[in-house]
């Protein structure tokens, strides 16, 4: 059975004049256990909205999300999230930030065990030296590592990532991608990630789901990325399959789902 079922989900927002605006139109997607799925599309197409619905932060207008069979009615510890902005609480140290999440996921466990879990999670992303530091004392890439550590520390079934590397420079981004692949492979976590970076999507995904342009976004096309793992970033640049995916995705985004201003 699929880990995550997105079942006929539609979402409309009411704008200030009281008009309902359909953002997502009947989206259905089943995501298997330990599958890595990237949602790709133009900005504003509703991919982050879809992720927030999966997280339970937004309620869909119609349709339902099931996580491991249970209907999602709100946020839950089995679905952890890495936010676009690192979303660390600046008044807590890195380990306190992770601890805050761990404490809720393993309620009732002794404090020493919780601290241990929080520290282990930071070690997993190679941040043992930043345990007692405040977010303002570390770089943007390190902050996002703490964000990833926090999400993995609660041992979620499904990990949701909302353009987590968007604000980082290219080198930091690829090292975090490598880190993410390594952890996902050892923990067998199911991942749904929103991105607008085509290369990132190909490098990480088992499947790439492209949304058509909003409003009323639908699933435009799905690619199964069959490039074997482990994937070598350098070899990927000249891999014939990868070049083909890249071309197709680009074509989809620029022709089938062009920018709104080009379409009109």
């Amino acid at each position, binding site marked *: 059975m699929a880990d995550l079922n997105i079942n006929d989900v539609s979402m409309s927002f009411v704008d200030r004049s009281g008009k309902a605006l359909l953002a997502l139109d009947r989206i259905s997607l089943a995501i298997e256990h330990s599958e890595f799925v990237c949602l790709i599309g133009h900005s504003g197409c509703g991919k982050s909205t879809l992720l927030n619905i999966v997280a339970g932060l937004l309620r869909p207008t119609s349709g339902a999300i099931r996580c491991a069979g249970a209907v999602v009615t709100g*946020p839950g510890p089995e679905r952890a999230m890495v936010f676009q902005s690192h979303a660390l609480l600046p008044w807590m140290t890195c380990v306190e930030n992770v601890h805050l999440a761990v404490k809720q*996921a393993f309620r009732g466990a002794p404090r020493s065990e919780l601290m241990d879990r929080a520290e282990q999670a930071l070690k997993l992303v190679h941040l043992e030296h930043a345990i007692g530091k405040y977010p303002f004392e570390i770089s943007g890439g390190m902050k996002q590592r703490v964000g990833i550590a926090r999400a993995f520390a609660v041992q979620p079934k499904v990990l949701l990532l909302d353009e987590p590397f968007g604000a980082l420079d290219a080198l930091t981004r690829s090292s975090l991608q490598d880190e993410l692949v390594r952890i996902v492979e050892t923990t067998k976590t199911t991942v749904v990630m929103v991105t607008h970076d085509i290369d990132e999507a190909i490098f990480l995904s088992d499947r790439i789901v492209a949304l058509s342009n909003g409003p009323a976004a639908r699933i435009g096309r799905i690619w199964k990325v069959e490039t074997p793992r482990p994937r070598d970033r350098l070899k990927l640049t000249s891999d014939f399959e990868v070049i083909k995916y890249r071309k197709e995705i680009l074509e989809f985004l620029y022709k089938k789902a062009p920018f709104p201003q080009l379409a009109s």
Partner: protein
Amino acid sequence: MLHRLRQPWVASLAIFVGFICIWAWLTTTPSGPVNAADAEYARLAGQSAAGQQASAIPSPRAVALRGYELIAHALDDDNPNNLGIAWHLVYSMGRVALGFTLALAVAVPLGFILGLWPACYQALDPFIQVLRPVSPLAWMPLALYTFRDSTISTIFIIFICAVWPMLISTATGTASVRAEWLNVSRVFGVPRLEHVTRVVFPASVPMILSGMRISIGIAWFVIVAAEMVGAQSGIGYFIWNEWNNLQIASMIVAIVLVGGIGLALDVILKRIGEGLSFRE
């Protein structure tokens, strides 16, 4: 050498010196021939009338001398009708401290509640909006009538003027915690009480502190006027009393002291704010 002259404090010093020079020049130039009636009046009325021949405003030198005199006797307390200026300042600061602390004790918890429950805020907002623009001194007669004590009345006035900025900024700060931080609480399932104490409160600390800074400024503003109206001590009373005695130099010294202390209060609260606020 030249680059030192370009520093801002050099210009500030130059402006200050220029100001003192113009002041000295204006106050030492005799204002025309002494008229006979004035001389006659001076014989009748004595020194105070005679002193007005040059200028009513004392020279910088006179103010400096008076300042030295006041500071030399700043701690005098042998005669209750002639307290030293330091005691007056202590009285004023004490009233401000009491009124401000009371306002803080009411504004922060109440503002926090208003920020957490927007419905409460909406219900109380009309009252806040009507009471906030009322000059604190408008409360003075009512306070004197109600409390029948001038000290309690001045403390009440300080309370009523200090409470609004802190109340509004606490409520705003609590209500406008960044969505990403609220989402962290929701996604990871932080329970309500922990969410309020460990996420909402620390997030609104900078706003609370800036409200406090505005409040202490206003409180120090208002204490002078409040003490002029209804007090027998304090720097406001001192200034009014010196005006009644036509001791213009003393008034100027007091004004400078009030400014200096106001600045010091602001700097202290700014430092506290920097110490308690989170950094990003």
